């Protein structure tokens, strides 16, 4: 041990001696010892807080009654946005029944005349 060390040790010993007189008396914290149930109570309290938080954070599963504005269906009409694709030339022919007129208007048929020859039996001139 060097002389400097001895000097320091002497100073610390002096400090220690002076501190001794001011050390508070020992008092065992016997009466203030935390009872054994206290940690369990803390756990129970923490669990209760977590439970409440879970209940509050859970999404509401009860059906919600929402008031919707009344809609008059008679005044509404739905139109497809692709309707214009159906407007092809001549499409009106598909939507209407062609009129062939009344049988009275047809040209009179001659029952005595030669019946029209079916196309399949027609002979071509050689």
């Amino acid at each position, binding site marked *: 041990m060097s002389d400097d060390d001895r000097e*320091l040790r002497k*100073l*610390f010993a002096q*400090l220690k001696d*002076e501190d001794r007189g*001011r*050390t508070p008396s*020992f008092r065992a*914290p016997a009466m203030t*010892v935390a009872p054994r149930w206290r940690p369990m109570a803390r756990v129970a309290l923490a669990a209760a807080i977590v439970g409440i938080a879970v209940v509050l954070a859970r999404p509401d599963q009860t059906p919600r009654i929402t008031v919707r504005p009344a809609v008059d269906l008679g005044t509404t009409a739905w139109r497809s946005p692709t309707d214009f694709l159906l407007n092809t030339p001549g499409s009106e022919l598909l939507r209407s029944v062609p009129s062939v007129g009344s049988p009275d208007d047809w040209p009179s048929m001659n029952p005595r005349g030669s019946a029209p020859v079916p196309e399949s039996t027609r002979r071509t001139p050689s």
Partner: protein
Amino acid sequence: MEIARANVEAELERHHADCFAWAMACCGRDRAEAEDVLQTSYLKVLDGRAVFASRSTLKTWLFGVIRRTAAEHRRWRALRRFRPASLADRADPSPDPATAAGHSESTERLAAALSTLTTRQRELLHLVFYQDLTIAEAAGVLGISIGTARTHYERGKQRLRQLLSLEADR
């Protein structure tokens, strides 16, 4: 159970003066805080939250418990500073008059010089010179390697000598 508790209490009483001095060193010589830290440490020992595993002497183990408790108190105080309500009841950082009074001039100089060292240097010098522990035991209390402890010890000692000689020259 009661016998064991009585034994523990007897051991605590035997080391009480050293423990209080160490608590003072850990709390920057704030007497009120040191008493709180010591009571909390004793509670930890008595209710089994701190368990002695016989890996060191009882005294160095107790010092470790006190050091950790003091660190917890410091963290708690640091957190309380962020609370607006704590502004009013914040402790006065000036030294406790009861602690400051009654010291000789040389020990006052020593305490002032120690307060300028780093925490680790101050703790090591206290453990070695005040508590008469070896550097290895002090390293065990602080939870550092012996090599690191030796480095901090030498630097702290050198710095302390400089400060004391500067003070003496004034």
